């Protein structure tokens, strides 16, 4: 064994510092969610857990009035976020895989025109067309609905492009073998293309679920009633301007709950997550 030199420890030190920078705020939030608002508000938050955890989470979950204000219950907001994230993820996957199948496996008039129509949505993120999109959704009567939250976000070129890219790697001979076996386009899609796309679907689901859960600007616009609030926008509404007299204990418990689903998805589906991210590049 070589003696350990200080220089060999430098990478570890740097990496540990990096890990701490990412972990510390989470730790503080976790700890904070177990103390009372007074302790937090005074700035005297200790580094160890307090005894209020269960009470804080129960209070946040049920939306009972805090010391100073009333909030939308976290369970409502979690449900809204869940519906939004799932609708966006599943909706995007569904419409993208169908359109990618059309573009990749058929030859028809205007094929490239449709392809480019889908492609240019890459250049129109929701942020640059907020007001008119809001107006369309309002005209359709979709304000404060799940449909209004999700549908305008489910058309995206990236998922279509990813599926199309994958479809182009399916060998021509497989399609020919299926034709000889007697499978038509619908049967080929159900029996061959869908099963072969499982990995891609799972990977994309992870990325899109996180994307949907973390939406901010759009829910801020299309929801005005408390019972349609999503959790990410809900937190910042609780905080307001960040005065010390907030119900910090509830806010922190809510923050922990808001982080839980996407972090769980990343940690438990890490394999798909990394693949989805690297393949689709958002």
């Amino acid at each position: 064994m070589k003696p350990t030199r200080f220089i060999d420890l430098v990478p570890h030190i740097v990496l540990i510092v990096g890990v701490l920078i990412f972990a510390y705020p989470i730790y503080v939030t976790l700890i904070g969610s177990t103390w009372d608002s007074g302790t937090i508000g005074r700035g005297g938050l200790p580094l160890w857990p307090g005894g209020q955890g269960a009470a804080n989470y129960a209070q946040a979950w049920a939306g009972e009035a805090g010391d100073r204000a009333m909030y939308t219950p976290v369970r409502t907001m979690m449900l809204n976020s869940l519906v939004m994230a799932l609708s966006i993820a599943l909706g995007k996957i569904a419409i993208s895989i169908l359109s990618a199948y059309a573009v990749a496996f058929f030859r028809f008039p205007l094929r490239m025109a449709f392809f480019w129509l889908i492609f240019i949505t890459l250049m129109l993120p929701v942020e640059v067309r907020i007001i008119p999109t809001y107006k369309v959704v309002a005209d359709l009567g979709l304000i404060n609905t799940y449909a209004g939250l999700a549908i305008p976000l489910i058309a995206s070129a990236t998922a279509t492009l990813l599926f199309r890219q994958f479809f182009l790697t399916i060998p021509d001979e497989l399609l020919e073998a299926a034709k000889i076996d007697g499978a038509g386009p619908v049967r080929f899609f159900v029996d061959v293309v869908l099963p072969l796309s499982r990995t891609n679907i799972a990977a994309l689901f992870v990325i899109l679920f996180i994307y949907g859960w973390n939406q901010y600007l759009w829910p801020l616009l299309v929801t005005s009633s408390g019972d349609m609030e999503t959790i990410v926008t809900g937190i910042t509404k609780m905080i307001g301007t960040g005065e010390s007299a907030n119900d910090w204990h509830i806010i922190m418990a809510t923050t922990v709950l808001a982080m839980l689903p996407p972090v769980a998805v990343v940690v438990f589906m890490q394999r798909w997550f990394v693949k989805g991210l690297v393949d689709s590049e958002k």
Partner: protein
Amino acid sequence: MATVEIRNVRKSYGPVEAIKGIDIAIQDGEFLVLLGPSGCGKSTLLRMVAGLEGITGGEIAIGGRVVNHLDPKDRDIAMVFQNYALYPHMTVFDNMAYGLKIRGIPKAEIRARVDRAAEILELGRFLDRRPSQLSGGQRQRVAMGRAIVREPAAFLFDEPLSNLDAKLRTQMRVEIKRLQDRLGITSLYVTHDQVEAMTLADRILVMNHGVAEQIGTPLEVYQRPASLFVAGFIGSPPMNVLDGRIDDRGGAVLLPGGQSLPLPQPRPTEAGRPVKLGIRPEHLAVADAGFVIEVELVEALGADTVVYGRLPGGEALLVRMAGLPSCRSGDRLTVSPPADALHLFDAVTGRRLEG
């Protein structure tokens, strides 16, 4: 089981004509090999029979029924692809059963047919595996199994062995031959490998640039190549081709080097005509008189020896001799062919001069 008739079949891609009118009637149970270099149109022709390519002109009939406008699934054919085209997410069993399921064949019969095919192909132990868990040779067999269970009118093989290594290829070649003998199903087999063609075929269709250069049994194609192209394509090493002229009496071929080779039959009507003279390397033997070559290179292959020689006029001449080498580079060697081993071709068209 059925005949496959190809009548003046043409294929064009825009202005480019890929198949320029092929005619052949394949007998019931016959094994026909489509042989040719890549790009000659042999795969296109096969795919037209399968229904994977449209037919620009002519007719294809399977079992007496014109199939020009039928979908592949309605043509009663099965196909084995070069890369096998197995469904990667299905087990061996499901791969073989898929076409039968789509056709609504009862489960019990599917089971029976797959089991029978698996037994013939010795795949019984692998029925629950996925293609990715199989070796190349096993995948190849699954691809054949998928064709067999269909009990089609004809098998179509598209270079089925070219993804295998040399040893496995030889082994599978023998298996395919045995299988076809046993099942007796009409087969069309595309390859660019002359050994596969010679060993498997009842008849060979040699294709070049979208035309049939020759249709014949393997021996006919070897012994009486219909054109310079066929002569050069079949046989290894390839046939020697020398420029020559029939002498004024029509009794011999004169070569630029001054040699004169007597013809087995005199050709008085063609006296003075320029020709191409073909001699297979294996037909040249050391003799007292004949071609004098300077040996440039000697390849000892064990069972036989290939000598790369050069004539005084500079033309290359290959000689294939049985056994171990008896000469070295730099040596002078006199070789000559028997009179009946000369092939004459038209100097312009490259067609064989019969007689």
